[in-house]
């Protein structure tokens, strides 16, 4: 496509979306619907050509798909893939009220399979190794035995922050006395975390706005 035309479409759609900042209007609605439609169509096309064709049709009918699936030439059909094909079709029974219950079998397989597949990885990476990462020395010394103040302070903050945060979410005992103070410190830890996340979110949104403003600048540059 012509670069100038692309710039005009880019700028027009950006301005249509930004017009919502003033108030809702038909131009914004048009751009919004166009975005949803194009995204859905793109993902549908990708789903067919990158998911169904190589992972199912290419396995069941390799000779038929040899032109579009690399490595399918000379391969014999793998009929085990009829099982996922049937499960996939069962999902579509949701569209027919009388047979909709059949889709639960496929959903049950998806939920069970995903849980079984992900559980060991999450348990290992997000729990055990994370616990290990918190078991660190509070006093950090260099090779000569000198105290590293910065590293030691970081470790103390990390360990105390984790303990205070955990105590805040420990509801089996009433948060009174020492536990109450630690729990209150936990709230502060959480607030600091949320504040940092908010700061990061601002940075992300401004980055995106900067990208759009640069695009509008390029469009204006092509005119003047």
């Amino acid at each position, binding site marked *: 496509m012509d670069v100038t035309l692309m710039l005009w479409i880019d700028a027009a759609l950006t301005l249509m979306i930004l017009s919502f*900042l*003033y108030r809702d209007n038909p131009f914004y609605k048009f751009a919004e619907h166009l975005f949803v439609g194009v995204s859905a169509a*793109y*993902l549908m096309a*990708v789903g067919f050509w*990158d*998911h169904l064709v190589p*992972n199912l049709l290419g396995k069941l009918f390799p000779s038929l798909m040899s032109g579009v699936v*690399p*490595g399918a030439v000379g391969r014999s059909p793998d009929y085990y893939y009829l099982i996922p094909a049937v499960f996939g079709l069962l999902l579509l029974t949701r569209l027919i009220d009388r047979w909709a219950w059949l889709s639960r079998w496929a959903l049950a397989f998806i939920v069970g399979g995903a849980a079984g*597949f*992900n559980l060991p*990885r*999450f348990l*290992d*990476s*997000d729990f055990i*190794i*994370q616990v*290990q*990462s918190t078991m660190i020395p509070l006093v950090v010394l260099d090779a000569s035995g000198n105290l590293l103040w910065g590293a030691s302070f970081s470790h103390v903050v990390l360990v105390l922050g984790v303990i205070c945060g955990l105590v805040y979410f420990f509801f089996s005992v009433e948060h009174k006395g020492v536990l109450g103070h630690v729990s209150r410190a936990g709230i502060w830890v959480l607030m600091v*975390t949320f504040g*940092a*996340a908010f*700061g*990061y*979110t*601002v*940075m*992300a949104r*401004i*980055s*995106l*706005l*900067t*990208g*759009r*403003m*640069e695009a509008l*600048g390029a469009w204006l540059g092509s005119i003047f």
Partner: protein
Amino acid sequence: MRIPDSILHIDRRIIFLLIGAAVCIPLILKPRFQDSPTPIVQSIFDTVERLPPGSRVFLSFDYGPDTAPELDPMAKALVRHTMTRGHEVSFFTLFPEGVGQIKKITDSLLPLEFPEKAYGRDFVNLGYKAGLGGAINTMVVNFRTLVNADAEGTPLDALPITADVDEMVDYVIILSLTAGDPGLKEWIQFAGDIAGIPVMGGGTAVVAPELYPYYPQQLVGLMGGLKGASEYESALVDRYPAFRNAPMDATMRMGPQVVTHVLIVLLVLLGNLAYFLGRADRAGRTGQGTQAGRRP
């Protein structure tokens, strides 16, 4: 309406205009803010720098055009660095929209800045693979089951860069640029923690806070948002002054970031000041009313 109340009920469109001006004016004036790499970014740079030339690097573009303003600068900086060091780069994506992002780099940046680099010898595009974390798991278990050709359908054996690649562990590092799931987190869970391949990369500023807990044990380094990209660019320019005149997108975009953040901090302070002044004002008026009511 009193001043504190008028500030608290300011038309939000005025805020939008102020933010717009805070972004546009620095883009026009182009102020430069010198950045220096923090340890978490420096460790990525040092790892790439220490690898011997010709090392196989796996670079996954796990993002689409919606987050390109944040992640494209990281992609460019990493490509410039790996290519300058003479590494062999395999581009890949777990995002359907990532295909276009890879194409943007291989079709524009590489021919322009590294014309001597050849496709199939110095870099390759392995394209998009569906399956989220499952795709990574399959690649770790049996790489060729999932990836047996490049994005154009050329068999891996026909390309010098991938002819010897049989397993995921044939790559010395995994770099991922992440906009969400799947991304760095999945690369850590399904490749780094299982196969022991060092994982590092960058994430959008929204994703970055979720990734920091993995550093340094499971994640070698992280570029968090545009700031992280800017730090990497500064490390690159410091080490390779030839890039001093190259367009460093993140460094340029830090101008709007700085001005907008200052503006937002001022608006937060102003909002709080107006709130407390308004409260004191209301309390004063209530007190006067009560006293007036007690007069005989």
